């Protein structure tokens, strides 16, 4: 089949403002970006945005339905759910985003290296990945949390981030390796090797940009998983602990006991997790298309 190649403009159009261009090309991605930005804003400026102190226990308004005073109602201790959600976005972003980013990036580098070097190195990396994959995400996270000392920097539990990031590594490594294997045999990689470029240069300059699509998809998908994993670990007493405001914790705590009397206790944190996951996934998709020069005219 030889259908005429799509039209080629006479002069290459350079996007004037990358942000403006993104909005024009990816309106849906722009909407999700707005949601993410709002969440980040809420996370960073929680004390200014939140109407109440998220830890403030008020026995006068236990299990209060959503009202003008408490937009999202109150929980079993009379704490304002809306404020807790706002503070919770801080936890979600720090733990969820960071661990997914760290895990996916390390996985991607490992996956590309595995595909690029091949042979024995590939075999060893893949067997290591096999071992890690044998454990369910949460079990592996438990092992990591238990094995390392609690290590807190600036109020952030680095240990917890690593615990969630490490199980993500093999999963991303596997997928990225598959994509990298097909890039590995492309003549432009051979051309780079024939030019005598360093391994680092070939991996980061020539291969990595061409496996960015699966990487971004995995990254955004694992943000959701990381938020859920954080919730599970918190539930088991190994992650974020009460009374810290965290979406997962709000879902998994005693909320389940009161789902008849106070459904808003599950509804709003659940909605927030879904919204965050949805926004990150959508944004990842549009970013992938936006970064691909082939989608540009």
């Amino acid at each position, binding site marked *: *089949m*030889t*259908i*005429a*190649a*799509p*039209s*080629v*403009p006479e*002069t*290459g159009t*350079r996007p004037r403002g990358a942000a403006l261009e993104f909005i024009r090309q990816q309106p849906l991605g722009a909407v999700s970006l707005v949601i993410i930005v709002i969440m980040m804003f809420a996370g960073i400026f929680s004390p200014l945005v939140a109407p109440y102190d998220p830890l403030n226990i008020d026995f006068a308004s236990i299990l209060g339905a959503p009202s003008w005073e408490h937009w999202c109602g109150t929980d079993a201790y009379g704490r304002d759910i809306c404020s807790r959600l706002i503070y919770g976005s801080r936890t979600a972003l720090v733990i969820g985003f960071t661990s997914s980013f760290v895990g996916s990036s390390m996985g991607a580098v490992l996956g590309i290296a595995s595909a690029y070097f091949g042979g024995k190195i590939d075999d060893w990396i893949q067997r290591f990945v096999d071992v890690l994959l044998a454990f369910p995400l949460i079990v592996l996270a438990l092992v990591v949390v238990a094995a390392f000392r609690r290590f807190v920097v600036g109020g952030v539990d680095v240990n917890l981030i690593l615990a969630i990031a490490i199980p993500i590594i093999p999963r991303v490594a596997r997928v990225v390796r598959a994509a990298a294997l097909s890039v590995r045999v*492309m*003549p*432009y990689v*051979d*051309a*780079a*090797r*024939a*030019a*005598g*470029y360093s391994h680092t*240069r070939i991996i980061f*300059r*020539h291969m990595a*940009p*061409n496996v960015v699509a699966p990487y971004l998809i995995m990254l955004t998908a694992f943000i959701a998983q990381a938020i859920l994993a954080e919730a599970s670990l918190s539930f088991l007493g190994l992650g974020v602990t009460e009374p810290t405001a965290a979406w997962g914790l709000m879902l998994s705590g005693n909320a389940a006991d009161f789902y008849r009397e106070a459904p808003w206790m599950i509804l709003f944190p659940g909605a927030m997790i879904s919204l965050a996951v949805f926004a990150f996934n959508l944004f990842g998709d549009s970013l992938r298309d936006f970064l*691909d*020069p*082939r989608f*540009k*005219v």
Partner: protein
Amino acid sequence: MEALTATRPQPAAASGALLEVEDLHVHFETSHGVVRAVEGLSFEIGRGEVVAIVGESGSGKSVTALAIMRLLPRLTGRTRGRVTFDGKQLLDLDDESMRELRGRDISMIFQEPMTSLNPLLTIGLQITEPLTIHLGMSDAQARARACELLSLVGIPDPESRLDQYPHQFSGGMRQRVMIAIGLACNPKLIIADEPTTALDVTIQAQILELMKDLSRRLNIALIVITHNLGVVARYADRVIVMYAARMVEQGEAEAVFHRPRHPYSMGLLRSVPRLDRPRGSRLETIEGLVPNLANAPPGCRFAPRCPFRIEICAQEPSLFLTDTGALSRCHRHAEIAENKIAWAAADAGTLAVAAEHGAPLLSVKNLTKHFPVRGKLAKKGAVVRAVEDVSFSIYPGETLGLVGESGCGKTTVGRLILRLEQPTAGEIAFEGTNLLTATAGEMQTIRRKIQVIFQDPYSSLNPRMTVRQIIGEPLHVYKLAPTRKAADERVGQLLSQVGLRPELGERYPHQLSGGQRQRVGIARALAMEPSFIVCDEAVSALDVSIQGQIINLLEDLQRRLGLAYLFIAHDLAVVRHISMRVVVMYFGRVMEVADRDTIYREPLHPYTKVLLDAAPVPDPTVEKARAPRLIKGELPSHMAPPTGCVFNTRCPIASQECRETIPPLEEKRPGHYAACIKI
């Protein structure tokens, strides 16, 4: 064959046209606007006639075939016009009747035999499927017919092969199976879209002979779509030349080839290197690029590239009847007929000859590469002998051609020299340094001097980098330019050196045409200031008119920069044009080495003779006069290599001795080496 002819009561007697295409238009709606892929195409095909549609990529030839079959994407493709087949209006038929027609009365053969068969179904099932669906045969009847079809297309032992899967067949065999499926229901018309493009020369010759023979014997009309003028000359009764969505010329094959009446056909025929003519010093080319169909120029489509352009060419030419009985879409066809205008001969230039032999730039000695066979069924230590005991030298400023069919190891040789693969044994020396024992530091300097140009201009450039980044990268890595500004200037310089405008630097590879991309690939190689370039099928993916431009560019660069090339290719005519000496490889071994003129004029090795015989020549008179000397059989399997001479399984003069001794490469005449004990 009795049964086959019996099912077709009136074999000869062409009564009226079988297929009539009138004013066919095909438009595609894309995000870049409407692309007019075919415009106002009209032609007729009689029963049993063989018509070739020739054109470069994007000319609309494949789209025409798909439009006739009504296989275009429903959402974006718009077809207008009239297609009458055997009295039926194809474009007005409902889907159900059209489906019945497809595969029964019209069948189609595609280019890629590797992917057009379903790998999970047996061959037998795939051949009997149309029989049971369209002709309502019982399973036993269908199987008998399938057997008959396989023997018709020359597959030995059909009964047992019916139960095999596609992967058990070679490329040529698969294409035969595709033809068998195409023939299954006694179609009146077969449309073959580049049927032999993916095949080797010797296999191509077999398939072409088979299709021509079948069409004549079974009175099947054949539309062959191809870009290869040699194939057209071998096949066609009539030729349709398409350019930028329009038919520019149509006529009897002899007329179009010998007395073309459209400047495009004239130019196209001139730009192919030919085996049957003395080698010119420089290839003739058609300058410029095929226009973009989304906003095509008004008037004659070819005018921007046409050397005979005059004022009237701004107006759309209609199809004129010329003196040869052909139709030409050119205002000046009469002047062409009177020989008043003709293409100027390309500037003579100097005929490149083999350089005076000093010290070789690169020498390869006893190079061997075995690939270990992986997989559960493989025996331990089993290897594929991709390259076996290959030796040759290349001198500064020389072009050494390396020819052979697919799987002969020619690409592996290139990759070994580039050190993309580690040789199993042997020696590669560049400027006296052995590459296999060189230190990392030495290797770093040598790498820069040995560069490569790949076959596929689509995948050899990183899609995420702009042209400027691609060409500028080596300058940056090797600090060949002191400042950023100097690097940018050098990139501009390199771009103009390969005939591209410097503004193209900001584009991404997908925004360029195939020829432009190949030029970028060349500029990237030149950025390192190499003295030796491996050209791995560097022009085989390009259109004929572009191919000539790139070859001329390579030759110009060689003259100006004193480059040496290893030119790896399967096209004998192209290799003859560009090379000074030629190495012929078969199944991992060197069969013959000689200088260009000797090897083409008086080949010694039987394999070289076979190769030269099989290559089609773009001239119907020559093709008709040539007795089809076909080589039997196919490449042996790498899993079970032949003993003795690797060519003995297909060699016309092989004897028992050939199965026992491996012939050494010997100097049979001064400077002419061959590996054959019979010479």
